[in-house]
């Protein structure tokens, strides 16, 4: 019951998608089943996001309750969860501040705080990549030298000033980089990685459907 039933469910759920691929979904009952199953999956998977939020609230609440180190910051996280979520869940007919439309608390907090902070967090990576380039990007051996030279060449090619500089050597140099580096070696390596990863994903999918791969079920 605890393991066999989930394996059967996984097989049937995947089998529908597998079989429906070979038929025209518009003209068969299979298409309607496929469409229904996919909308079910979207709904069930949506609840997993809420499970994540419940887990975050639980972890932070325990720190605040026990007054552990940094509990004040965790309290801010908890307050932020509710200040963002509760007005969004209340009907907009009660107040224009509720719901998620323009002018709502939810929208205001997202546009002015979440989006700004998320942008800043990632903007900081520009400093780190510069620091890493300076401190760790060394031509220690042949492979590292190839990597370094390609990086410099591509960086120059990507910016207008650099492209103009490359043209000083040859007018065709930017086109050569685009053709032989980006659409040549880069394309080939990306293709190799795509093929390898896709074969891996397909075999893992088959293992899940056949019940060989069960780690997603956890223990017990």
């Amino acid at each position: 019951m605890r393991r066999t039933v989930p394996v059967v469910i996984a097989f049937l759920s995947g089998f529908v998608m597998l079989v429906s691929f070979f038929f025209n979904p518009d003209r068969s009952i299979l298409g309607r089943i496929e469409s229904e199953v996919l909308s079910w999956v979207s709904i069930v998977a949506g609840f997993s996001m809420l499970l994540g939020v419940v887990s975050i609230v639980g972890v932070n609440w325990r720190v605040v309750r026990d007054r552990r180190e940094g509990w004040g910051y965790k309290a801010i996280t908890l307050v932020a969860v509710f200040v963002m979520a509760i007005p969004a869940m209340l009907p907009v007919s009660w107040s224009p501040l509720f719901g998620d439309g323009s002018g709502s608390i939810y929208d205001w907090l997202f546009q002015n705080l979440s989006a700004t902070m998320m942008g800043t967090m990632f903007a900081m990576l520009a400093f780190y990549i510069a620091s890493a380039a300076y401190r760790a990007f060394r031509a220690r051996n042949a492979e590292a030298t190839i990597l370094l030279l390609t990086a410099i060449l591509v960086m120059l090619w990507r910016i207008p000033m650099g492209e103009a500089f490359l043209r000083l050597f040859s007018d065709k140099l930017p086109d050569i980089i685009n053709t032989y580096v980006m659409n040549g070696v880069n394309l080939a390596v990306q293709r190799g990685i795509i093929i390898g990863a896709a074969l891996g994903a397909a075999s893992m999918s088959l293992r899940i459907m056949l019940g060989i791969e069960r780690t997603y079920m956890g223990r017990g």
Partner: protein
Amino acid sequence: MSGWEILQIWIMAFFTLALFSFLYRDNPAYRLAEHLFAGLSAGYYTGLIWKSVIIQQLWEPITRAENPRWWLVFPGFLGILLFTRLIARISWVSRFSLAFVMGNTAGVYLVSQLHGLVLPQLRSTMQSVVSSKGFGPSLLAIIVVVGVISTLIYFYFSKEHTGLLGGTAKVGIWCIMIAFGAHFGYTVMARVSLLIGQVYFLWNDWLGSFKQIL
């Protein structure tokens, strides 16, 4: 610019600078912003799932007067079963829901990865050799074929990389280094772009607001 807009800009600028302050060292302003961001993100997800899944995909189709889709209570029930994960004694019940999602995704992947990625990519590689004419395209086709094969061999770990296999893998690592170098070049642009976005805001909006205040 109204007073309210200026206040908004200053709040945004405060949190932007609070996060940037981490570049100097960890400090309370950064940690305040970091924890606030985590909470707001979790809250955003909650509001989004409430609206897009619970209301739009469940409640409204089930309760509408015309052609109600009452059977959607089943995926709703499966979704609720996921929460049994939080109760150790009955956490195994959540496997039914997980298996449904995992199996379905596996079914889609099995076909789409082979039909949508492996075959077209292989076809393109082989066809480029046959169909290319002239020195440039032929050279490009050879680079692509050699690059694809040597990359695949480099990542093939079932046999020791010696002899012909080792030589091909060596070519593979050179190709990979060129591709990673190109990737690094692109990544620099990506990271700088994000910084430009935030600096534009501070320069134009925040510093611009000083003119309004003074």
